């Protein structure tokens, strides 16, 4: 079975009855590994459409979870259950729950290490005091605002205050977490949270793929939230020095915030500063300083000195890039898509109002980025198959546009593989208006193709 991967969370959706025999057919270790390779930092099995499960049925998943968690440092577990199912799982695994349980996928996403999330006000309750604390810390570390109810009574009172909370977290259990370096996005900066002792483990807990993908899609400022770091050893020092050097190729800046050198040699700080890493005492010293943000590259990608241009391979493969886009749009709309004007230049959007965009990067034998720009109404049409209903929900439309551009990336990967060109794709990114897109793309040169389906126009842009 294949997982649905969204926001860094890979979810398998079995249906019907789960016992020892069926669960082995539903999920194999290869299925999970393929999901991890596709940028998932959390692997879950949804129980939403499972009407029956027994201990044997869950056991085969749990065994696989343990293997994969140990190897890849990711969060594993179950989601989408009701209280009856939650109690049944707790009964099966009373004192031995190494996996996590998330009430639903929305709750799970709050705990996903690498999801570009906005801060949410989260009402939180767990009967278990240590779980309440663990959940709250993890939420806080991921950039959210947890409000803890200390008793069921308090929870019942607070839950009635509608519109106060974005999400309610209950019937949720945090098992062994991945211990991956958590990351979140603030504006155009990426914040990684590191804690305790930084040693050789940082090489496996830091998601280098995610970092490279972020560079590929235009992020230029990376902040390590190091308030909780106790000390750093020489292995970690080497790791961060190398990270700084490789990021410098993209003109990216790496900063450390709140790092204390009481138990770390001060010479390490000098070494890191020599590699280009900057140190700040408070997060607000950076985030509230617009001028500094601009200087550090968080407000625009236009600072990139070594502007990269399309190369011969990209031009040769241009029909495949267009094909991947056209075929996806045709598949999603049941309408024939057509190519109109083609031009090589910086991106040029005539009418900027009422348009949204999404992009996906690719890297490997060749690297670059595809950008699709749609009028909102046309984006809705293009996403109808995935949304399934009429909606004015801008967040949902953007979310679905990300899914669409993900399919484009998947198709591109297949088409290029036929030409013996191997690429991986990054997580998709969306832009709620043209101004936010331009922060990343305005000075990039590339191929712009005007496309239509059912006389509706949209824009394709390929750049590096």
């Amino acid at each position, binding site marked *: 079975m294949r997982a649905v991967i969204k926001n860094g969370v890979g979810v398998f959706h079995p249906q019907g*009855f789960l016992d020892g025999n069926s669960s082995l057919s*539903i999920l194999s270790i290869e299925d999970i590994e393929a999901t991890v390779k596709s940028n998932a930092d959390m692997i879950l099995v949804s129980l939403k459409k499972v*009407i029956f499960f027994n201990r044997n049925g869950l056991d085969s998943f749990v065994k696989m979870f343990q293997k994969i968690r140990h190897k890849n440092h990711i969060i594993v577990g179950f989601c989408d259950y009701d209280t009856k199912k939650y109690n049944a799982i707790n009964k099966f695994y009373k004192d031995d729950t190494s996996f996590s349980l998330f009430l639903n996928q929305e709750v799970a996403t709050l705990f996903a290490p690498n999801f570009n999330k906005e801060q949410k006000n989260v009402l939180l309750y767990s009967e278990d005091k240590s779980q309440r604390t663990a959940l709250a810390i993890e939420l806080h570390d991921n950039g959210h605002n947890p409000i803890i109810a200390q008793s069921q009574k308090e929870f019942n009172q607070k839950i009635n205050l509608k519109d106060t909370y974005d999400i309610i977290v209950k019937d949720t259990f945090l098992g062994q977490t991945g211990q991956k370096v958590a990351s979140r996005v603030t504006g155009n900066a990426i914040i990684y949270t590191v804690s305790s002792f930084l040693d050789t483990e940082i090489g496996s807990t830091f998601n280098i793929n995610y970092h490279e993908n972020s560079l590929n899609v235009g992020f230029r400022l990376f902040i390590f939230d190091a308030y909780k770091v106790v000390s750093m050893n020489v292995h970690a020092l080497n790791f961060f020095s190398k990270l700084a050097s490789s990021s410098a190729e993209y003109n990216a800046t790496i900063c450390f915030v709140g790092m204390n050198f009481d138990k770390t040699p001060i010479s390490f700080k000098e070494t890191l500063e020599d590699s280009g890493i900057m140190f700040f005492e408070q997060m607000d010293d950076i985030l509230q300083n617009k001028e500094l943000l601009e200087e550090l590259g968080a407000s625009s990608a236009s600072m990139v000195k070594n502007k990269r241009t399309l190369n011969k391979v990209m031009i040769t493969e241009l029909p495949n890039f267009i094909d991947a886009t056209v075929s996806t749009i045709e*598949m999603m709309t049941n309408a024939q898509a057509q190519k109109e004007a083609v031009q090589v230049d910086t991106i040029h959007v005539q009418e900027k109002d009422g348009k949204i965009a999404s992009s996906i990067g690719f890297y490997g034998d060749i690297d670059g980025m595809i950008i699709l720009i749609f009028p909102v109404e046309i984006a809705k049409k293009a996403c109808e198959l995935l949304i399934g209903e009429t909606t004015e929900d801008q967040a949902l439309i953007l979310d679905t546009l990300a899914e669409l551009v993900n399919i484009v990336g998947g198709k591109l990967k297949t088409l290029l593989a036929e030409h013996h060109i191997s690429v991986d794709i990054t997580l998709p990114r969306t832009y709620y208006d043209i101004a936010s897109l331009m922060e990343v793309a305005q000075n990039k040169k590339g191929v712009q193709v005007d496309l239509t389906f059912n006389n509706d126009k949209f824009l394709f842009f390929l750049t590096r």
Partner: protein
Amino acid sequence: MRVYILITQEHINFYIEKIPPMPKTLKVTMQLLQESELLKASQIAKTDKALSSYLKELVNKPIYGFKNEVQDIAQIFGILGVIKSQQVVYNYMVSLLSPSQWNFFQLNKTTFYTFQADLSVGWQKILAHLGIKDREFEATITLLPASVIVSEALFCEKKEDITLLKSVKEINLNTILQRLCNQTLFDICETIAKKWDMEAKTIALLHASSGIKPANDPMCNTLGKWMHLFLFYTLSKPIYIEAGLNDFIEFNIDYVEDIYEDFALLMEVA
């Protein structure tokens, strides 16, 4: 320029047009079975070698539970009785639509026939438990595998596209068809059933079993719940999960909630 459209109404119309009407031998066999003329029906059935061979293969599957191999058609009809004999003949008709080579689903002739047998025998057990003896309701179960055949026919060349779609969204073939063409797999099966002159009651139960279109008649609706749950009970077997059948349509848990306990007792789910 290549066109990548996934599925259109024209595709569906073209597919339906290709479905043959019921062959004459089958029509006569069915007619005689309806008149309880088992012997005469078996004599006609014998003249169709493909039908004879299918009947022998199907009823000798372990799930039918015959101790000795049954080779004679008259004997088969005799053991099964009128209603079950009609059911196996309908199964044969559906099998005529199955492709020689499966591409979308990991099925073959043997596993597909096993699927038909599993559904038919299990459904007989359910109807017996509910105390229902009804020719039309018995026949409905034979149409469920037709939805698998229709899916294979419509999506066999789009496997990669569907895989990509399913990697970004939890979506099934029935939903894709409904959103793109405003028709479900069950609507197409209805057209097939009508082409074969199957009864309205059979078709109503088919729709109720989809989990998305409850029947007006309460009895039909209850049976639809049982059939929907039984379908997913069957699709949870490893052989069908590995064939890719577990999520080709959506399982509606809420729809079957009120009959689940009774079902679990009957099927000894533990």
